[in-house]
């Protein structure tokens, strides 16, 4: 997935399981887990389907009845948190900044 200027991916050491209400994302090496709910679980679902950044913005905007600008701000905030939590990583050599 391309996140603005960076290409992001789910690290191989991250696995996830979902039930009807939430998604549990586990970083196997860091032994950290993240419980995703509401729009975060939807975003994780779309992201792991392989949708690119502009498509994620569009899907989030439609789902949340927001403008694409508002959706983009929300998406960036979520992606930043996931990067910090280690459940997303920057693909080496793919920096476009």
């Amino acid at each position, binding site marked *: 997935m391309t996140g603005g200027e960076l290409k992001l991916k789910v690290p191989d050491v991250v696995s996830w399981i979902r039930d009807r209400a939430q998604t549990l994302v586990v970083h196997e090496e860091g032994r950290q887990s993240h419980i995703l709910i*509401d729009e975060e*679980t*939807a975003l994780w*679902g779309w992201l792991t*389907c392989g949708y690119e950044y502009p498509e994620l913005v569009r*899907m989030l905007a439609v*789902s949340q*009845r927001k403008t694409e600008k508002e959706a983009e701000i929300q998406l960036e905030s979520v992606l930043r948190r996931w990067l910090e939590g280690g459940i997303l990583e920057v693909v080496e050599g793919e920096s476009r900044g």
Partner: protein
Amino acid sequence: MMGSARNEEIFAISVEDRVLLHAPLHRVTALVDQTGAAQIAAGLASNNPASNREIQSIVEWLRDKPDPAPVERSGPIDQPLFLGLIPTRGCNLGCRYCDFPADDSNEKMKLELARDAVDAYLDLILQSGKAECEIHFFGGEPFFAPAVVQFVVEHARMRAAHSGISLHLEATTNGYYPANVAEWIADCFDTIVLSLDGPADFHDIQRMTKNQRPTFEVVFENARIFSGSQIELCIRTCVTSKIASALPEIAEWFSQELQPATVCFETLTPSPQTEKAGLIPPDPWEFAREFLAAEKVLAGYGLNAVNSMTEIQSLQISCCPVGKDALIVAPNGRVDACYLLPESWEQRGLDMNLGQIRVKGDVPILELEETSVRRARGLNVNNKLRCAECVCRYHCAGGCHVNHPGDAPTGQFDELCIQTRIITIARLLKGLGQHDLASKWLGSRRAMEASVFQQSDFLSGETL
């Protein structure tokens, strides 16, 4: 003395030298001899007790107040059967029997429309106080518009979870896509109805790509993914004259390779397209026998055989979503009662449209026409003359409202009726443990004809 009154909810079918009584509203099915049947008819027409105790106990059961017959829904739609979404009418395959115009219908549902349909449906469910809801995807091929499906799945799950509603997701699919799509489906959906016409030799003569390439290999690999997952896998096989005689063999193969929850064998619906492709429905007598043999094979593995018109466990007045308040949204926002193409209804003089998805202010609503809803609900077996006196009326309910019109005279049974009546009678006999009688009866065309071509199935002393 024989009674002459017609017992309109008690059916009597001659099977060899016996009479099969079936009164679904009384929950009575019995096998008696001709004399016993006459005594039952007489007993119901008078208050005189029968001399035979077993016969008298049947009479008493039949005198008890029956369960209410299934009736047409009324009032506004507040308990829809499910929300159906048609992400696209397009398809990636060119099956020889398919008459959907897949080549020129690449319109895909807009995400905004899909969202509005889901939101309006969930609001309706919340208002009704229900805790469960269902979204079914139809096509074309729904996964030919993957972004729509993947958007809806996540959006609907989020909305349902937020509202405390349990969501059931189901799709009818051809299974022809990359394995990662099948894995995603297996992870997200509850039920998949997969079109698979058997092993490669059978499947590939009927189901191919638009450029006539075989599809079996891909579909089978994906079927294995579904089979190995938690998903409920229902295989749907279209039975033509070319594969009818192989149904037991196909059932054996399904059982060993895929262990689906159910295998649904439905006969080909003839159309100009199928005629052009040289495909014809099976002979109904052969289909019925082979279906029952396949059912036995599947039962040996603990699996279910389904034929939508012969399910005797339930009572219904429509055998499909029509009349049950399913809300099926087309890519253009129309809300219909049926997932078939509007052209196919119109050719039969039917209108299945219920209304439209609209947005009022910021709120999406299902704008349904009261008269249209009433019209769709009126498409049921109670308004089908052909079925009026048929033992199958509460099981097959007249079949497809579009492809099997019920306006023929009472008792004028066509090929679909013939196979339906044979399978239903055989299943009723087997339910009574009468396997030997069922086998004997199925082995005699003359005996089956005597049963199948009864003009009226109502129990009547005069006709026994």
